[in-house]
């Protein structure tokens, strides 16, 4: 096993090797830190790397394994945190010049849970400013590139997280998803990303208007389930946090025969690239091999983009309430064009959106009375050029700035669990993913279905040449 092989081990494999003393957390961490030094100048996944902290964590884990007995769940497993999430004592830029030197004195409870589980903290991964778009470029750290093709974007807003996984810079990465920001980069980068049910992972700042969710990204489903086990569970810091669920890592061992699966190529409104359509259709059909009943069906609901637009855009603008003019020159100008629109919406517009959102939820809920899962393409296209705000079909002044992610944002509105699962490559060699969405709060079935698909069509062996 050479150093690169170590970098591409899964968390589950690392833990097994640590336990059997075939590998030490310090060796693994050193290999990954070396990998970051070697490839990250080209990929630019990290805004901030914390090598000393990582080695300290690794030595502590090494001692724990040496002592034997019970070690914490993620002892010695290197991971990264997205730079939108405050981390105590570690610079957190949120992709913004305004926060370029911010060192928070707090972090959300899930970060503490990851630390307490013995994880090795590698650093903070890149994000567009405030997580505003599905590409990862900002004025603090620049552009993150897709390891499969450095001309392309890894997607966003958790683009740094996905690129880090793809390039072997840590087996686990935390992502956040307000309109698709875990699933877009997971699909574009060929890794697994799970947006959990709203409240599964507690995050302070949640409000009934909120669309954002935090979740795990990994190169394997089992790793994501393990990470979610650590992050999930109720906490008073989040009014919406859900009760503790049984272990996802254990649950994914089970089968999925007999599940009723709806497959939709377009949800009735999306336009999908033909090559992506072919790959995702073939992938959905394979669930029949797993004993599922696969039917072509969708909920028959209109594209909810307008609801997402107002809630997402006003939410983005909320950070600068009362001082937008003052900070405008320092903001990402593409983002500024969008959040300037927020001032034009009234209470009536907002309430209309909220009531429609409740209706949308009812429609989706009714659909899931018939089906256990809904499978769609994760994205309607493969990765586009890095550095653009949107795919080339969208005009720079468009108000439909996220409408090209038609499969992801519906499930930010409803809060349902939704994962992006790699399912192949285009002829250009770019990854394509399917999206598996489950019933509200039924993260377990989504993860289990993803794991069984992974058994049939494993992807984690594929490595980009860097």
């Amino acid at each position, binding site marked *: 096993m050479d150093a690169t092989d170590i970098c591409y081990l899964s968390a589950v494999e690392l833990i097994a090797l640590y336990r059997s003393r075939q590998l030490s957390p310090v060796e693994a961490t050193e290999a990954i830190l070396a990998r970051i030094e070697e490839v990250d100048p080209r990929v630019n996944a990290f805004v901030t790397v914390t090598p000393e902290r990582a080695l300290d964590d690794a030595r502590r884990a090494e001692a724990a394994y040496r002592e034997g007995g019970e070690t914490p769940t993620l002892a010695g497993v290197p991971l990264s945190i997205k730079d939108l999430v405050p981390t105590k004592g570690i610079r957190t830029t949120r992709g913004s010049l305004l926060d370029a030197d911010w060192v928070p004195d707090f972090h959300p409870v899930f970060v503490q849970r990851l630390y307490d589980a013995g994880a090795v903290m590698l650093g903070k991964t890149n994000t567009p400013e405030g997580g505003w778009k599905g590409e990862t470029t900002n004025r603090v750290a620049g552009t993150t590139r897709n390891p499969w093709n450095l001309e392309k974007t890894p997607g966003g807003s958790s683009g740094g997280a996905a690129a880090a996984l793809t390039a072997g810079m840590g087996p686990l990465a935390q992502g956040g998803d307000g309109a698709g920001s875990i699933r877009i980069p997971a699909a574009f980068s060929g890794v697994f990303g799970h947006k959990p049910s709203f409240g599964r992972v507690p995050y302070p700042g949640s409000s009934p208007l909120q669309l954002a969710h935090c979740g795990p990204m990994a190169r394997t489903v089992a790793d994501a389930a393990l990470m979610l086990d650590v992050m999930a569970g109720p906490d*008073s810091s989040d009014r919406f946090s859900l009760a503790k669920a049984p272990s996802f890592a254990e649950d994914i061992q089970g089968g999925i025969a007999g599940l009723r699966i709806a497959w939709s190529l377009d949800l009735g409104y999306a336009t999908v690239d033909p090559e992506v359509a072919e790959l995702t259709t073939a992938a959905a059909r394979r669930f029949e091999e797993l004993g599922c009943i696969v039917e072509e069906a969708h909920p028959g609901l209109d594209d909810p983009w307008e609801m997402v637009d107002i809630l997402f855009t006003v939410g983005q*603008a909320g950070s600068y*309430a009362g001082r937008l003019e003052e900070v405008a020159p320092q903001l990402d100008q593409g983002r500024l064009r969008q959040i300037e629109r927020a001032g034009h919406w009234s*209470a009536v*517009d907002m309430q209309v959106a909220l*009531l429609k959102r*409740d209706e949308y939820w009812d429609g989706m*809920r009714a659909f899931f009375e018939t089906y256990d899962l809904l499978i769609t393409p994760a994205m309607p296209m493969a990765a586009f050029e890095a550095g653009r705000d949107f795919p080339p079909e969208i005009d720079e002044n468009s108000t439909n700035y996220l409408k090209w992610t038609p499969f992801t944002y519906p499930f930010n509105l409803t809060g349902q669990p939704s994962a992006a699962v790699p399912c192949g490559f285009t002829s250009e060699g770019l990854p394509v993913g399917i999206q598996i969405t489950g019933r*509200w709060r039924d993260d377990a079935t989504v993860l289990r279905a993803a794991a069984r698909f992974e058994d049939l069509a494993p992807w984690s062996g594929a490595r980009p040449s860097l």
Partner: protein
Amino acid sequence: MQHHDELWALPATELIARYRRRELSPVEVTDAVLARIEQLDPTINAYVTRTPELAMENARAAEQAYLRGQPGAVAGVPVAIKDLTPTRGIRSTFGSLLYADHVPEEGTPDVERLIEAGMVMLGKTTTPEFGWKGDSGNRVNGPTRNPWNLERTAGGSSGGSGAAVAAGLATLAQGSDGAGSIRIPASFCGVFGLKPTTGLVPRVPSSTSFHSHIGPMTRTVRDAALLLSVTAGYDPRDRFSWSSGIDYLAEIERGTDISGLRVAWSPDLGYATVDPEVAAIAESAARRFEELGCELIEAHPDGPDPWPAMEVIFAVSQLSRHLDDLEEVRDRLDPGRVELLEYARTISAEDIMRAHAEWNRQYHLWREFMAEYDLVLTPTMACPPFAAGTHRPETVAGQPTTYLGWTGFAYQFNLTGQPAASVPCGFTTDGLPVGLQIVGRYRDDLTVLRAAAAFEAIAPWPQIATPVVESPPG
């Protein structure tokens, strides 16, 4: 207390015990309550719609259920439902002329659970138009009068429910509370009311009414625990609802020892203006928690009056009823409410986001405060009940009032989502009820109920108002 043995005065827990022993039949009890309604409700006006035939049908079914030995948890117990809750097949006016003849085709999760548990449905209780104020006057059938003094308001917006329970016109009543609407009438009518934690009792639609919580209004704490146990728990129609897994009544029966709890008492939360007599009565009630073995400390979080954020949230929630037809329907609305809606139309989406940010800050401010305290006590209301059919008290302690600004003890906990109950704790020299508010940690409704039951044991309150119609005002 002279009415204590009348069937319409018995608590639900007592009725159920006697039903089980076959000492009493749901039909007799329902007859007695319906007779009481016929006698008093023309004066009190707690009901906008009565369903006596349905009640008798439910009572007969409950009787059979007891005979078969398979009664539901509230089988044969007479229940009133607030008219803001749409009820399948039963007229639901929402206190609005626009819905004076509205018969919904869909019900709500909590009422479905009560039906499933065998309740006797008495009818729908009076509320101001869409619950917009702390009095229960409306243009359909209001106002509801306070059984303790018919010139005074029963409070609102669950005023019909409060008055019905106080006067023995219902054994249990459902209320809802968006800015105090369970606790205001509970305090004014001298009954127990609990606004549960956000989402414990599911409600729809959820996105535009997240500050509003459904809960029990009863004469005893145990009855509220029973009603809560039946109605609480996750329903997929409300994606913010959750299950506690707690049988509240069973827990209260197991014990009400609250000794050793750290309890904060605040006479004003740092911002409220309070009538001196109400303040004194509430404070002496709070002091009694020392007799219960609690450590009582005068304290409150260091935060501003959250009214500006609450006003935005409440106003836009009211506006969501008239998003495209305000001009068309304006003449049929309550003119006082039209003013509120006009204001709501000037609010921007960004104002809403700012209000939500403050809402979130309030949650965290109180979460940190509650790390030090198990419970917080305050007066429930800043004043005794004011004139029936008006919008609000003209003054409190000599100070002029604003729209709902005088309910500062109440709306605070609509924002934080914490469980908050009102327990009767005395009467003014004018004979008007005063309530003590007991607030718990987020999702710890049980400790609030347990504390209320402990207080009830040492300071029992009169169970039934003696309505003046029995001895007309002189």
